[in-house]
C-alpha cells in the first residue's frame, strides 16, 4: 500500500498541461482584461467575449494572445 497522498500536494496546475502563460506580456494582458471586465463592466464577461470572437474571426491564424490583445484594445476604445 502506498503512502496516502495529501490533496494539497497533489500537484501544480501545469501537471498535465503547459504553463498558463509563455511570456510576461501574456499574463499582463490577461489580467488587464480581467481588470476591465471587473471594474468597467461590473463583471460581465460577454462584451469582451464578443470582441475576442471578432478578433479571432478577423485573423484566424494569429497567435491567440495577440488576438486577445486586439480584443482588449477594441473593448477599451469603446469605453465611454
Amino acid at each position: 500500500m502506498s503512502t496516502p497522498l495529501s490533496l494539497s500536494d497533489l500537484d501544480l496546475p501545469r501537471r498535465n498541461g503547459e504553463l498558463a502563460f509563455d511570456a510576461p506580456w501574456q499574463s499582463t494582458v490577461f489580467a488587464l482584461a480581467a481588470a476591465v471586465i471587473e471594474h468597467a463592466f461590473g463583471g460581465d464577461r460577454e462584451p469582451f467575449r464578443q470582441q475576442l470572437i471578432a478578433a479571432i474571426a478577423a485573423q484566424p491564424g494569429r497567435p491567440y494572445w495577440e488576438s486577445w490583445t486586439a480584443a482588449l484594445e477594441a473593448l477599451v476604445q469603446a469605453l465611454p
Partner: protein
Amino acid sequence: MSAGGHHPAPASPVEQRVAALEALLTERGLVPEGFIEEITRRYESEIGPMNGAKVVARAWVDPQYKQRLLADGTAAIAELGFGGPEGDHMVIVENTPGVHNVIVCTLCSCYPWPVLGLPPAWYKDPPYRARMVREPRTLLAEMGCPLPEDAEIRVWDSSAEVRYLVLPERPPGTEGITEAELAGLVTRDSMIGTARL
C-alpha cells in the same frame, strides 16, 4: 525576464501594445495596485486541473455528491470551494461505456477556468475548434483517444454562459484506493474529453 536585466531585449510590437494598454488603464484607475501580479499568481499556481480532479474523485466515491454534481454543477463545485470567472453556469457531462463526451469552443476559447485553469494552446487553435465538431472520431483518434465504433460521441460547444466539464469513467481496478489517490489519476485531458483513463 532575463537573469540580470541589464540588456533586456527590445519590446516586440505586441509587448508595446500591452504596455500602452496597461498605462492607459492604470491612468483611468481600472487596474488596482498589485492586481496583475495577483491574477497571474492565481492562474499560475492556484487554479488548474487539480481542482477538477478533486471534483471528479469526489463524484466517484460519493454517489450523492455525484447526483448533486450532475443536477447543478456550479453548486456542487462550489461545495469544494471552487468558483469564479467562467464557472458561473457549469454543466457536467458524464461518460459511460456507450457515451463519450468532449468539450470545445468553436468561436473562441471558452473553458471552465475554476476547475481546469486556462485552456491549453491546442484547445484555442483553429484546427481543434473546427475539427472536433466536423470529425470528432477522427480527431480523437489522432489525439490518442480512439473510441469503439459503437460508442456515441457527444460534442459540447461552450456557449455564452455554459461551461462544460467531462466526468470521466472511473478506471477499473481502483476500488481500494483513497479519494486523494483517485484525484491523482484524473488528467486534464480526460476532463476535456480528449483522453480516457
